């Protein structure tokens, strides 16, 4: 073929960007620069203000890792369902709430039986199991009502249905269980702190962190090693092709919802142990943050969910002290949630594909 018209004026990277970019990219760049500047100013102020000691920051970090591992567990449910269905389970946060209440009732029953005090290390797994069962069952119901009927339809129906289910769950739970805060009975041994490598850490944080790690390791093993995990990965890759090679796609979807719900149930129980109070409306905020963690890590990516959860937890724990304090705002901890939700928006501004995501940038081609 004829000569390639390139040699003479090979454009630089910047002019190439200018050629390709549209006004959207330009405005976005401006937003990015101003957000980054804002954070840097806050950070500089926070570091020089010296309100908090190094020990404070260490304890913030510990707390951030704990809450982060809970976010990671919630994020897994979003990410798994998204990986398979390319849809967001809007009611996932409320699944977590149901799991938390299932754990509450299990703890209550075990406490009445005297088991919590007698065999605390047996009671904890039992409560976790109850939470997992509750979360998985609720997740299955949601799949049945909001997703399965619309499996072959391109529409917003599943999303609207899931929004509806979220409200059904919240307000049915409110009617059933009441609005007051509740705590798991009998877990008194969790009061107090232990000294770990010279750091003073509250016991529930250690328990929650370790339990989250164990569950996550189990899940990763399941997905990487078991036949079910293989089938799940196949369906995530290409649903039709998976069906052609004989994988029962419906069953895989059901299993995915069940596992995601179980993870949320674990998150609900651990949350209850760390914060010592649960309400029927807690699923909403935690659901949004779990979702933020999922897209922060790169939605559809299990490792990303873990990373995203921890990063979000740390940002939320350290952010008020580090950044908001720097602006001299009064009571920065009131704005903890702003950091959490703000992270969600920031990811979308800076890197919509998430930290570990590459494949699913703005849309799938």
């Amino acid at each position, binding site marked *: 073929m004829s000569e390639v018209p390139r040699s003479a004026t090979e454009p630089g990277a910047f002019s190439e960007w200018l050629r390709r970019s549209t006004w*959207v990219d330009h405005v976005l760049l401006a937003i990015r620069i101003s957000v980054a500047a804002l954070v840097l100013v806050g950070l500089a102020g926070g570091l020089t203000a010296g309100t908090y000691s190094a020990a404070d920051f260490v304890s913030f970090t510990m707390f951030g890792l704990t809450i982060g591992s809970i976010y990671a567990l919630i994020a897994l449910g979003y990410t798994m369902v998204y990986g398979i269905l390319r849809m967001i389970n809007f009611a996932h946060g409320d699944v977590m709430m149901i799991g938390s209440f299932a754990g509450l009732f299990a703890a209550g029953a075990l406490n009445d039986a005297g088991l919590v005090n007698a065999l605390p290390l047996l009671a904890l797994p039992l409560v976790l199991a109850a939470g997992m069962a509750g979360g998985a069952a609720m997740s299955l119901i949601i799949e049945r009502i909001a997703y399965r009927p619309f499996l072959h339809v*391109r529409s917003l129906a599943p999303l609207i249905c899931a929004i509806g289910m979220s409200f*059904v769950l919240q307000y*049915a739970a409110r009617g059933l269980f009441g609005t007051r805060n509740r705590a798991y009975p009998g877990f008194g041994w969790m009061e107090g702190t232990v000294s770990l490598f010279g750091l003073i850490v509250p016991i529930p944080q250690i328990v929650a962190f370790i339990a989250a790690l164990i569950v996550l390791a189990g899940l990763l093993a399941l997905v990487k090693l078991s036949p079910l995990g293989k089938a799940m990965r196949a369906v995530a890759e290409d649903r039709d092709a998976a069906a052609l090679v004989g994988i029962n796609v419906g069953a895989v979807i059901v299993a995915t919802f069940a596992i995601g719900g179980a993870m949320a149930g674990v998150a609900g129980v651990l949350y209850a142990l760390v914060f010592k109070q649960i309400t029927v409306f807690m699923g909403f905020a935690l659901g949004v943050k779990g979702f933020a963690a999922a897209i922060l890590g790169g939605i559809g990516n299990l490792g990303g969910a873990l990373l995203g959860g921890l990063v979000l937890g740390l940002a939320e724990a350290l952010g008020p002290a580090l950044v908001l304090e720097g602006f001299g705002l009064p009571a920065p901890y009131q*704005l903890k949630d702003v950091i959490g*939700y703000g992270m969600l928006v920031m990811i979308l501004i800076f890197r919509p594909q998430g930290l570990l995501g590459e494949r699913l940038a703005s849309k799938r081609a």
Partner: protein
Amino acid sequence: MSFNAVTSSFKVTRRRRAPLAETLQVGALAGFAAIGFALIGAYVAMDKRHVVEDTLTLSQIAFALMAIAAGYVAGRDRQGRPSGTRVVVHGAVAGLMAGLCVSALLLLMGSISLRATLVAASPMLIKALSLGAPIGSLQALVQLPALGALLGVIGGLFAAMPSRYRRALTYGFAAVLIAGLFRDVFVSVLENLPDLNGPDWEVFGPGGLNRGAALVLLVAGGLFCLLRDRWNARIDPARRARSSKAGLVLLLVGVLVLPLVTNDFVAQVAMLVALYMLMGMGLNIELGLAGLVDLGFVAFFAVGAYTVALMCSSGPLAVADVSFWVALPVAVVLAAGAGMLFGLPVLRVRGDYLAMATLGLGEIIRVLVLSDALAPYLGGSQGIIEIDHPRIFGISLQSPAALYYLALALAGVVAFISWRLQHARIGRAWLAMREDEDVAQALGIDPVASKLLAYTIGAAFAGAAGAVFAALVGSVYPHSFQLLVSINVLAILVIGGLGSLPGVLVGAIVLIGLPELLREFGEFRYLFYGIALVAMMHVRAEGLWPATTQTKENARA
């Protein structure tokens, strides 16, 4: 995938079990529904509302409807027309089963206390479910299954009767129910009318309909339906269309004169309905036309409300003290600006991220407004008070009726704008984007720009609604701006019909007006919203609403 794939291939034919097992299952389902209804506290709450004075309460009707529905389904679900005995037997079995479930609950509550776990399992519930029989007596336990069986038979017979009479009965019953439920509205209307009631004959008692009036209404409703059917069968379709147009005009006239003929409470409710209509029109552009699921709508509502609050308040936080008519455009522009700024990063990613991201936005605004950090400017949880009422021609719009007309007029303006846009270049671009985003883009439509425009306009309308809200309430507090407002608006659109302007009106009346008038519903409002959203999607969403948000694997082809 072509659009033919929109119709689901997933209509599973129901597996046929033994008829009796199926009937028992239907009955058990109704029973569980009844138990759920009781345990979420709805039974006790709605037991206070008498539909027919001293005879029937709302929760009794709800229970009866569940048993009748069970009997109806059990009686109907056979091939061909059901035979008489079969209808009776299966209806009775289904109703009996439902009644047994409730009896079991009653027995359980009587023997152990569930209150530690389930707050609604109270002595009041036991008393209410005993229907006046001595608590814990055999009669209390037996009468429920017996009643259930009876109602089940009625349901079965209902299924078996000719549809003409079935419809007539439904009409009559609906007339009684509506009259009983909205007693307060009708009483207030009757009070404003010249005294037509005879001295010793009152339609309404202190709680609900009087028995005689209920009977008259039942018969009248049924007769009306039968006569109308006969009338409709005779006349030609053109005249029928004209009469339905007349119905629409009648509805509009009703909407216009409503606050004049009733009391201030009803006018207040009407004002709220108009306000939500205004918001519904705004979200309709985003969701109904452009297919954007926006749950952060309330954030722009808050921007509008706080703008007016700061500009029109005579309190200490005011930054200006100008007329509402100056503040309104400022509020709209600020809300639109906020929408544009926030929309840009969110709108270039996947459609269903939007629901979550906007949810986060709504909460960010609420937390910010509530925080101590901004309290010196926005009042924190104390809010901003003493907002001046709007004045027009020197008259202060203060009464609920005046503010109702203000909101209604704005809603009309917004409706007009959305109607115009819908039939212009940009409206067609929105619809095309909703149908197939890739193809629309290949035709030269900038997807981010057109979505951003829809989002900005929606935000501007939300800001206008917020401005009106601040003016009519006279004060703003952070707790007025919860996510639930967004959900209200979303539900109005989904229930009323996406993209349809009359749908917004109907949705706002059904979802905002009715629960306000039915105080007993208040607590369970969002539960019913949730159920309604799910039910709507199952009953009529498929195909009616193909959207842009799905994956685009087929583009590779």
